[in-house]
């Protein structure tokens, strides 16, 4: 127990927590969008994150292959590389999401089987993805090239506004609010919301169900890929098993905020990120996931539908 950090590092922990939270938010969108539409846990999303981190590394290496030094980049070249890696990782993850839906969910959905069957097929897909990555990388961690010199904008109240922290928070909010607007304002977003309310009725209204579901997986994959890019940029290393913990935390965040609810995922993710930072500062980082789960159980006991409620009233098995 080390409560002194509460006074000395309070704002610093908050800032880092929010930055970590944004990574969780973007991943948990991959869970919450799919859950909202299909009422199924998208189990393979954690491995989609993992694939995204590798896609980021591949993109960065592809751009930098003629650069002999590993010095950080500057100016236009830096922005161009970062944006390219972000877009590449997002697209790969988006397409991977569509593929996951195609092989793990579509046929089972057409047969109208129980929910657990698609859970197992999604687990099978995640085994395939993580094993493929493990064999390809020989279980070794892969280091990403250092693109970003981590200079600081300055400190406010002890919180160090490093460039990557600021980038995650700014870009994360832009992506989230763009998605929020897309789902709530656009025609396709309306279709997604309609399917999440009732599959049968939206079919009657002329919505192409399969296309909307594919689109949902694609969008979930896009944000997940963005999160994978931010993760790689901050930690600069990745391994075949990074997906599990990230996915677990993001799914917890989605449940905390009320799964199926976009804004719930936002608040849930930020809350979880901050909580994790404080828990690891006070209790030691080995206990952070225990704290997170205890909080989750408490929240669910007091308010079973999550802090911000579900999009559709009741979750049925």
């Amino acid at each position: 127990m080390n409560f002194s950090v509460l006074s000395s590092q309070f704002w610093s922990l908050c800032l880092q927590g929010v930055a970590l939270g944004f990574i969780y938010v973007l991943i948990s969108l991959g869970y919450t969008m799919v859950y909202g539409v299909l009422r199924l846990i998208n189990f393979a999303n954690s491995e989609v994150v993992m694939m995204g981190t590798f896609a980021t590394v591949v993109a960065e290496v592809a751009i930098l292959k003629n650069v002999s030094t590993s010095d950080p980049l500057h100016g236009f070249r830096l922005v161009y590389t970062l944006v390219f890696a972000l877009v590449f990782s997002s697209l790969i993850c988006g397409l991977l999401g569509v593929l996951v839906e195609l092989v793990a969910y579509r046929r089972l959905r057409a047969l109208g089987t129980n929910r657990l069957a698609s859970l197992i097929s999604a687990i099978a897909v995640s085994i395939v993805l993580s094993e493929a990555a493990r064999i390809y990388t020989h279980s070794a961690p892969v280091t990403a090239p250092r693109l970003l010199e981590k200079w600081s904008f300055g400190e406010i109240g002890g919180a160090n506004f490093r460039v990557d922290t600021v980038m995650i928070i700014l870009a994360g909010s832009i992506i989230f609010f763009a998605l929020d607007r897309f789902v709530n304002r656009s025609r396709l977003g309306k279709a997604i919301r309609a399917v999440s309310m009732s599959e049968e009725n939206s079919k009657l209204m002329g919505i192409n169900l399969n296309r909307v579901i594919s689109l949902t997986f694609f969008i979930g994959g896009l944000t997940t890929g963005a999160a994978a890019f931010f993760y790689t940029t901050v930690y600069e290393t990745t391994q075949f098993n990074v997906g599990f913990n990230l996915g677990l935390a993001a799914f917890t965040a989605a449940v905390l905020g009320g799964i199926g609810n976009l804004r719930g995922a936002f608040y849930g993710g930020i809350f979880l990120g901050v909580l994790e930072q404080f828990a690891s500062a006070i209790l030691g980082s080995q206990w952070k996931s225990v704290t997170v789960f205890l909080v989750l159980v408490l929240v669910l006991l007091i308010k079973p539908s999550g802090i911000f409620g579900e999009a559709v009233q009741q979750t049925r098995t």
Partner: protein
Amino acid sequence: MLNIRDKGAAIWENWNRTKRVTFVLIVITIVAFLPYAGTFPATSFLNTPITSYQAVLVYPIAMFVLMALGLNIVVGKSGLLDLGYVAFFAIGAYTMGILGTMTGLNTWEILPIGIALAMLAGLILGLPALRLRGDYLAIVTLGFGEIVRIIALNLTQTGGPNGVVGIPNPPPIFGEKFGLDDHAGYFWVIFVMILLVIWMVRRFTIRRPGRAWEAIRQDEDVAALMGVNLLVYKLWSFSIGAAIGGAAGVIYASKVMFIAPDMFTFNVSVLILACVVFGGMGNMWGVILGACILAYLPERIRFISNSRQLVFGLVLLVIMNIRPDGLLPRKKREKIKQKEAK
């Protein structure tokens, strides 16, 4: 599609008592001689390339069958999605590890303690968690599985990441010794436990708890309206499942003599759940078949050693797409009713 389960059930119903008893005795005898199947030329195709066949028969096959039967009570019979089943296995194993090395108690004396502790853990987790529905229960149990592993990893009493070393083997019973390499003995012990569990589940299924679980699985609200005490029967199902997991853990720790936290990861829970769903949720024989196949297959295909998990994932994916209700699904009658309800 051919439904072996219904055919089998029909044949079984038409048999009289003597035929049934003979059949069961023959099956038990065949299974009891399985440890020696690897030595006969006719059945030597069963041999596994790397680990010895007898060792594979104990862990993973028999152990997975036992645990899958336990999880089947929770997931298959009462429809509660438990993603943290490994926690109970770990609690059993650590009970054996700590008590076995600290005190002079032997495995058979620790077995009831391990079962009791696992049941207690099931109750402690179940009391808050079983009020939740569906996917929330899944995530809370998943978290519980991780918490148990993290606690084992960080406490000094459990040996931290090094685990517990030098756990004693069980003392001999009826002259049958239990050394590290006496796999047949362990197989028979677990086989007896499996038979007990099968007998217990069959008794439960036709009596009040079984009917209550069935009602809960089909529709919680209707079950509650019909006067089924939801929390009590869910707790029963949960803690019986936990007890079986705990028993498996005690035997496992006592066999391998060494346990560490990274033996009890989420992957184990997923594998056991895969056995249940793959074989046919709610149908014991399907679950046993599923567990046998999923435990045996990765060992048999080890010649492609590095990518066997990959092949395993692909096989699982293909089979779930072909037979989503599992290899031997539960009774057809019920499924027709489900389709009508939709």
